[in-house]
């Protein structure tokens, strides 16, 4: 069954995902298996701080992982509405309300440490959206038939080791 969801516009296609991993030395063959979408709450804040030089405003983009309820800062990006099969969507386990609280806590922490100030900024939400981020699952195998899986970020092309138990997805 298909579902309409907001997704971050991908930059990395299937071939590029395989190509990025092929660039690493080692005699293994990367084989892209499938594209999956991971759920996040994306919030665009406008932070305003009153200093002795007047008001300063800073944009902040927070992504909250809706599976683990863990936040991180992000860049600005465009998102589009996409109709996709439900089985390619990772199921969210965190409510939007809880994720919003996590985002606010993380935003304050980041603002204090990255801006190195103890001023209390006022944060105004500019945009909030549950979005899905594309990831490629790539199976790599070498001559001795040893296999491992890699998750490739469909936006940045960065990767992480994926601890999958089976080979067939």
């Amino acid at each position, binding site marked *: 069954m298909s579902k309409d969801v907001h997704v971050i516009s991908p930059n990395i296609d299937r071939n590029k995902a395989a190509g990025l991993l092929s660039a690493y030395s080692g005699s293994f063959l990367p084989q892209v298996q499938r594209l999956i979408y991971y759920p996040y709450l994306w919030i665009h804040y406008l932070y305003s701080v009153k200093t002795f030089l007047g008001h300063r405003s800073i944009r902040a983009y927070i992504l909250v992982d809706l599976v683990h309820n863990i936040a991180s800062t992000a860049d600005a990006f465009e998102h589009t509405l996409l109709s996709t099969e439900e089985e390619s969507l990772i199921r969210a386990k965190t409510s939007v309300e809880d994720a919003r609280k996590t985002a606010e806590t993380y935003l304050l922490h980041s603002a204090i440490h990255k801006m190195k*100030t103890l001023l209390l900024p006022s944060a105004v939400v500019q945009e909030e959206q549950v979005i899905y981020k594309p990831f490629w699952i790539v199976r790599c195998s070498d001559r001795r038939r040893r296999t491992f899986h890699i998750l490739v970020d469909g936006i940045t092309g960065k990767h*992480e080791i994926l601890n999958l138990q089976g080979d067939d997805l």
Partner: protein
Amino acid sequence: MNPIVLVFLIFYYVVVVGIGFWAVRKGGAKDLEGYLLGGRKVGPLVTAMTLQSTSMSGYMFLGAGSEGFRAGYWAIWYAVGDIGGGVVNLSIIGRRMRKLSKILGSLTSIEYLENRYPHAATRLIAGILTIFFLFFYVLAQFIAGGKGMALVTGLPYWVSLLIAVGIIMVYTYLGGYFAVAYTDFFQSIVMVIGVVWIFGASLSYVGGWTAANEAIAQIDPTYLSIWGKGLQYKNAWGEVAGAVLIFSVGYMGWPHVVTRHMAMSSPKTARMAGLYSTLWNLFFVTAPYIVGILAIIIVPNLGDPEMAIFEVANKLLPGAVVGIVMAAIMAAIMSTADSILLQVGTIASRDIFQRFFKPDAGDKQMVLVSRLLVLLIGVIGFVVALLQPPGVFSIVVFTTSVLGSAFLPAYVCAVWWKKANTPGAISSIIGGAAIAFLWNVTGAAAATAIHPMFAGLVVSIVLIFLVSLATQKSSPVPGHILKAIDEAAKVGSIPREMLASADANLSNAARGVADSLNP
């Protein structure tokens, strides 16, 4: 007061503020990511230089120089540990800790400890210990700032201290707008030039290394010994071990250093940062100790050993250079104090106040708690620094030995030993801190010829192993933590280069995908 020094001191700050404004106008700091020192906007070399220079505190200019001046070549033991400290730390807790902290969703180093060793007591004890002992580290920056300001301006110490503490407090409250990577980088360049200049001028003044050693031998040949002046530490290997350990592994007890480790996204970044840091340390860490040793000849009648480097600079460098270098030193002191104060404020508000007193505390209350604690530290620090200022070297050694002894085994075992459990970690933290503290304050170090860092660390290591093994049945490590440790340690048949480039920021997505797809 030398007016040329003062003019160039002011000139330096005008340039720094100007760079800050330029950076803001250029757009480098219009969003939160623009404030990332180690972010994508600056390369690894700039990042490493910026991180190293901002971690160079008043200790390097007052503490290191004073130890060289006081004990001669003995001081090099401390430099030896410091040179390799960055690489050692990154190698021991690097990749696994970054990944585990992401998987456990930890924002602060104290929160990470509680997530790995799950019990409220872990956070409470670690939080209070950290706040208490980091106060002394901030105190060292206050004293360094006050003494430096007094030398530059010619004002009395108490006035200079008041100004220095005032500037640090204002900088901490408002500093964000100028603390961008560009200003920190500029500051690091000035510091490098300044240290190179002081070092070169000192060597030139004494007629080279050989001539310097001959001149020092005329004063007291034991200055040239690795056992310290008067052979004070002869065959005291417990002291030597502590002196090397304190800045090689003791750093791992500093929450702001651990937090920095947690923030690095990939092993490749960490490896490059470690390489550049070591290159930087090879020169920058050693030079202040050596200038302190050369000061024995250059300023032999120095009353306060902590002023060795300042006085050498004042005597040998042109007024304009002294002004700029002094300003860079002051900026380094302010930057370090500001970072520690922010860490302490966060630990107080998030790890203590919100965790134990008001779980639903809002942003306003959290910031208020941080600000009040920072203010309290400022007031107490000023009073202590005014009435009975201890030596900067002693304070830093004291703080690092206690925090290092307390936390090092807990951090290392967190990723390398799955049996390390909560009772083991808590007893190690308390036992290590208590022994190092007592060793420092009771004079046990002198009586036993064993350094507080060495004594504290041995006790801390023994406790985490013994108590963890003894309590495996009553306090097993929870399954989700064992799984997370396995995940953090996973290497398998994956090529090294690919593993080194893996991005720990994607750990949670990888875990979520695996949990969803695995049967």
